[in-house]
C-alpha cells in the first residue's frame, strides 16, 4: 500500500516535471518563431513557379504516355509474332505470367503485413 502510494506520488511529480519541460520546450520554439521573420514573395512569384511546374508536369506526362504506348506496341507485336511463329513460347509466357502475378502480390502483401 505504502509502496504504491509512493510510486503514485512519483508519477505525479514526473507529470508535473514533464509539463514544466514541455512549457520550456514550447518557449524555446516560440523564441525561434519570433527570431526568424519569413519573407513571403509576391503572388506573381508563386504564380510563375506554379506555371513552370505545370509545364514540366505536362511534358513529363506526354513523355510517359509516349513511352507507355511504345512499350505496349513492342510487347503486343512480339506476342502476336510469337502466336503465329512459335506458339509454344507464347503459351510458356502466358503460363509464367499467370503464376508469377499472384505469387508476387502474395509476397508483397506479406512484406507489408510484416512491416506494420
Amino acid at each position, binding site marked *: 500500500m505504502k509502496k504504491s502510494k509512493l510510486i503514485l506520488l512519483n508519477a505525479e511529480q514526473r507529470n508535473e516535471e514533464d509539463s514544466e519541460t514541455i512549457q520550456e520546450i514550447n518557449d524555446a520554439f516560440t523564441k525561434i518563431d519570433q527570431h526568424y521573420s519569413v519573407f513571403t514573395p509576391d503572388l506573381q512569384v508563386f504564380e510563375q513557379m506554379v*506555371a513552370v511546374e505545370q509545364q514540366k508536369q505536362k511534358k513529363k506526362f506526354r513523355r510517359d504516355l509516349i513511352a507507355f504506348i511504345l512499350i505496349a506496341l513492342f510487347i503486343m507485336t512480339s506476342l502476336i509474332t510469337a502466336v503465329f511463329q512459335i506458339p509454344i513460347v507464347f503459351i510458356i509466357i502466358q503460363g509464367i505470367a499467370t503464376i508469377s502475378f499472384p505469387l508476387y502480390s502474395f509476397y508483397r502483401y506479406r512484406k507489408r503485413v510484416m512491416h506494420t
Partner: protein
Amino acid sequence: MDEKELIRSAKRGDSLAFAMLFKENYPFLVKYLIKATMNPDIAEDLAQEAMLKSMEKIKLYNGKSKFSSWLITIATNLYIDDLRKKKRELEFKHQEQALRKMKWQFENHSEDWNDALAALGRLSDEIRIPIVLKHYYGYSYEEIADMLHIAIGTVKSRIHNGIKTVRKELRPNEEKQTNTTKRRTTK
C-alpha cells in the same frame, strides 16, 4: 475565396488558385520547417520543394486535414527521405554547423540561446519532429502517426523519450535526486 474553393480550382489546374494557396501557407510552412529541422538555411528550399510536390499530388488530397497540415506532412517526409539518402556522418556535421550558426544568429541579436534550445537542437530529427507537432502545433498522436507513417506507439515513445532527454539536460541534478529517492523507495 475560401480554402476549399481554392483547392477545387487548383485540382482543375488553376495556377492562380495554387499560387494563392501557397502564398497563404508559405510563412507557416517555413516556420514549421525551421523548428522541425533546426536548420533555417534549408527551410526555404524544402518549403519550395514541398509546394512543387503538392502540385503533383493535389489529386490525392482528400480535404480531411487542413491544407497547411497536408503541406507540412509532405515537407516532413521530403526532409526525412532526404536524410536517408545522405550519409549519416555528413548529416551530423551539417546539423552541428547549422546549430552553431543558429546560436550565433541569436547571440548577434542579443537574444539568449538557452539550454532548452541547445537540448532541442541536439535531439535527433525523428524525435524532435513529433515533439514539435504534438506540443507546439497540438496535433494528436494519431494524426502524427498518420503524417509520419509510423505506429502510434512509436510516436508516443519518441515524444516521451525526447522530453525525458530534454528534462535530463535541463535539470541534471534533479534527475539524480529523483533517481536516488526512487532507489530508496524500492528497497
